[in-house]
């Protein structure tokens, strides 16, 4: 296998004059030249050489024997691949972030290749030649536009087809076909009725008010009465239908939006943590609330409005042509201008309003920020500066508002004028026709009335594409979340594991939240059932990350993690989670009673069971002493409880959960000696007989652990029992000394 990218013919001819890709391991392009400008250079690895070719044919040619090692240095906004040759570093190629992943993989491969050839030269044939494969992540680009897609989704927002989104949206209407039909019928009838009143001036004028032929007064009055009644009925009927339609549409739109929102939220719940890490929670909340509600707005307000406008437009045009087609053609002369102008004006205005919204949002955020930090502001006497900053933001809003309103005030009258041109033309041309007796005065009246109704829909229709784009973007953003598959997926051949012994093995595990920046590097560890492992190291050494992997909140990038000899990715997630318990440093208690919190993972637990667990966690006594006992409501984030109490509730929760594998992220919060002892007791009971991984800060916990793993920069630096490691006087010894020092300082402070 090899990693070969689309090679330009020029480079290819140079490499293999006979064609084909035999003997090539890697052919990849860098998107920067070595002088740091944008351009392509090619890196080629063959069996025995590394070559770099620039666009000008210039480059490097290094025999592999000369290379000691290769490193991919990550720089700001990109990186560089360098090789150590003859005791100096030689830069091979430079690249931007877009190519970083490919080059860090290649660096790894090159090092393996160099190592392999060195072994080979020594005569050893045990090792297999290293391999490099095409990047599977490359598949996550849109096949059409090569855009990098969000992980786990195949939907390319750029290549998305409007009709597909509409089609998918229409799918949500399926359960409500009858309601939809009902609404359509109401709309048709309503539009029809609305077309009647403007027609009535024609007979009113020609037969009642200024009759063209002689008619008797009584008959004229009867006709007048009839016409006025028709007017009344048509208007009333139109309004009644409007009411019915509005009510039906309100239900339908809200209902659809509810369906979509519910589906979206329940889908979100099952997405892996990785999804939430990569996004701001605010952006996700926006998807759930804003995007669905803007869809709701589109469905309730816009769709029916558009439908009515289109129907009205068609209806009016039909009636006008029927009455007098020559005049109609004249009327439509300004129509294209109206469409083009309103489109241009509309875009311009929308942009300006967006700007206004943006600045206003910033102003609001600023106020929120500085008022919640008012203590700090006062403490540092920065009131004046804050006020100045507000005034600056406010001025931005003022300018944006002024610009938008000013543009609106200018453009709208112009548009209005162009629109009214049609009516003016009709008065002149129609008037002449009336004088010459071609048209009755009534027809002219009706014509002008219809005309005023015509330009409304026309103006609106010119903005329809913008409106459509906006609603479809919302829809698409919702669909995108729905189409996101969890990174941590249930394997197709997942095996149920109702019983777990608790053996945990890590084999060369490498993982980074950002795939090319590993946090845990090549870690191997074998943990026997019931063993307690203490994880020690600086913050950032990879302790929490290791634990996240054991819980399978994330999947390893390389290597394997086995539980009872089964790859963790092949175990049913439900079974796994049921057997793993966590007591986290940041004890999160939900809003609810203490009872609900302890029984969170096992809601079916009996009250006695809960009390037994609480007792074992040394929590029972303080709970019962509370006026509401187990029914005490824990405030937001457990504010009503002290830190020590919260921890013990979390321990009780874990005891009740009864996991085979336990994760303990010990809190550093200082509690009084008695509470400390109680917590230690509770932890000791909890840990008994379970495979435990403890991120330990307290020396006492470390002493209880069977073995300690000292992590440094994502690798295991030391491994052994507490006493062994102390005797070794290495990294662990140093950490302990530091801690002793710290506690001495604290003792003095007290």
């Amino acid at each position, binding site marked *: 296998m090899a990693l070969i990218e689309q090679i330009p013919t020029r480079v290819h001819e140079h490499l293999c004059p006979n064609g084909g890709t035999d003997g090539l391991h890697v052919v990849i392009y860098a998107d*920067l030249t070595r002088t*740091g*400008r*944008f*351009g392509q250079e090619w890196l080629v690895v063959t069996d025995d050489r590394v070559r770099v070719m620039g666009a000008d044919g210039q480059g490097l040619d290094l025999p592999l024997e000369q290379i000691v090692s290769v490193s991919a*240095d*990550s*720089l*700001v*906004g*990109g990186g*560089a691949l*360098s090789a150590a*040759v003859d005791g*100096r*570093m*030689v*830069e091979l190629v*430079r690249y*931007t*972030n*877009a190519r970083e992943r490919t080059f860090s993989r290649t660096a790894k491969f090159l090092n393996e290749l160099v190592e392999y050839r060195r072994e080979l030269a020594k005569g050893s044939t045990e090792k297999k030649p290293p391999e490099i494969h095409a990047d599977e992540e490359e598949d996550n680009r849109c096949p059409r536009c090569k*855009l*990098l897609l969000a992980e786990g989704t195949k939907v390319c*927002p*750029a290549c*998305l087809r409007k009709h597909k989104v509409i089609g998918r949206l229409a799918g949500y209407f399926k359960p409500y076909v009858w309601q939809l039909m009902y609404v359509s019928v109401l709309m048709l009838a309503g539009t029809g009725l609305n077309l009647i009143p403007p027609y009535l001036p024609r007979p009113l004028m020609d037969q009642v008010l200024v009759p063209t032929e002689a008619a008797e007064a009584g008959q004229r009055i009867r006709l007048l009465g009839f016409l006025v009644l028709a007017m009344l009925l048509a208007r009333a009927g139109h309004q009644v239908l409007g009411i019915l339609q509005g009510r039906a549409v309100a239900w339908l739109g809200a209902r659809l939006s509810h369906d979509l929102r519910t589906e979206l939220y329940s889908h979100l719940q099952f997405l892996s943590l990785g999804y939430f890490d990569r996004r*701001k929670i605010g*952006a996700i909340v926006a998807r759930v609330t804003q995007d669905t509600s803007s869809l709701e707005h589109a469905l309730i307000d816009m769709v029916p409005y558009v439908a009515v406008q289109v129907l009205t437009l068609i209806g009016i045009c039909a009636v006008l042509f029927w009455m007098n087609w020559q005049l109609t053609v004249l009327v439509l002369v300004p129509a294209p201008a109206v469409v083009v102008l309103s489109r241009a004006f509309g875009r311009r205005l929308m*942009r300006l309003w967006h*700007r206004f919204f*943006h600045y206003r949002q910033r102003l609001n955020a600023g106020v929120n920020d500085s008022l919640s930090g008012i203590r700090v502001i006062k403490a540092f006497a920065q009131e004046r500066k804050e006020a100045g900053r507000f005034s600056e933001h406010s001025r931005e809003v003022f300018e944006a508002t002024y610009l938008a309103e000013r543009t609106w005030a200018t453009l709208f009258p112009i548009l209005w004028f162009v629109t009214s041109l049609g009516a003016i033309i009709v008065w002149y041309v129609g008037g002449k026709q009336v004088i010459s007796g071609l048209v009755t005065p009534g027809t002219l009246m009706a014509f002008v009335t219809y005309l005023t109704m015509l330009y409304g829909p026309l103006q609106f229709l010119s903005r329809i594409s913008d409106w459509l*784009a906006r609603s*479809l*973007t919302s829809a*698409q*953003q919702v669909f995108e979340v729905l189409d996101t598959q969890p990174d941590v997926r249930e394997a197709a051949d997942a095996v149920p594991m109702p019983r777990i012994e608790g053996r945990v093995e890590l084999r060369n595990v490498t993982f980074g939240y950002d795939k090319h*920046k590993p946090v845990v590097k090549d870690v191997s560890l074998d943990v026997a059932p019931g063993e307690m492992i203490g994880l020690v190291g*600086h913050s*950032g050494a990879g302790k929490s990350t290791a634990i996240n992997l054991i819980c399978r909140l994330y999947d390893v990038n390389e290597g394997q993690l086995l539980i009872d000899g089964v790859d963790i990715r092949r175990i049913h997630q439900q079974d796994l989670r049921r057997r793993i318990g966590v007591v986290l440093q940041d004890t999160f208690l939900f809003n609810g009673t203490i009872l609900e919190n302890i029984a969170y993972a096992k809601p079916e637990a009996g009250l006695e069971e809960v009390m037994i667990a609480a007792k074992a966690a040394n929590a029972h006594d303080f709970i019962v002493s509370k006026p509401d006992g187990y029914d005490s409501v824990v405030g937001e984030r457990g504010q009503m409880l002290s830190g020590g109490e919260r921890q013990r509730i979390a321990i009780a929760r874990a005891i009740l959960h009864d996991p085979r594998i336990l994760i303990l992220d010990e809190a550093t919060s200082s509690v009084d000696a008695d509470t400390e002892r109680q917590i230690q007791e509770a932890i000791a009971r909890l840990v008994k007989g379970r495979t435990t991984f403890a991120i330990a800060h307290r020396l006492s916990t470390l002493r209880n652990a069977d073995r300690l793993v000292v992590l440094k920069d994502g690798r295991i630096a030391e491994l052994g029992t507490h006493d062994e490691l102390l005797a070794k006087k290495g990294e662990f010894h*140093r950490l302990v000394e*530091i801690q002793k*020092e*710290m506690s001495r300082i604290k003792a003095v402070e007290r």
Partner: protein
Amino acid sequence: MSQTTAAGAGRKVERPPVDRPMTASDAKPDAATLTILDPKELRFARAGVELRLTVGDRCSYPAVKVLRAFPLSQPQRHLSVRDTGNREIGVIADPGKLDEASRRLVEEELDRRYLVPVIRRVIAVKEWFGTVDWQVETDRGEVRFTTRNLRENLVQPSPGRLLLTDVEGNRYDVPQFSALDSRSQGLLMGHL
């Protein structure tokens, strides 16, 4: 190497006993003191891709890194010079005071490390469905890139200045919006 948090800066207690050569200006380095290097004492030299630093006539570092302390607001001042173990040798307050050859090498090194192209001209912009395709001319040549979700990926670090982040995480700088030609301004404005 990637910049993990300045490991040496905050937690001095954990630092192992001094195992590096002394610099001329700090005979006994105090963990809490910022070492300001005297530019006149510094000599930079190139060895392959690496930069060698000699301080005074006493000590020499084989491969130093030069980092900007304020990459956005003060890119040409306050450079942190670090050794292979990412320990800070000291800060150069004004690299303009280095000797000519050293200054050029430092600039080269900064140009290599900080790949933030400066947009000189916007050639074409195409937007569909919240994804914007840019074709721009930068100080490093012409380039095309794609941005998504501009509300988050276009920031204004100071008035008039814009920073764009594309889908790959590359950044593009517009130091002064009003300094662009009016066509570029218009194209940019249309998507702000």
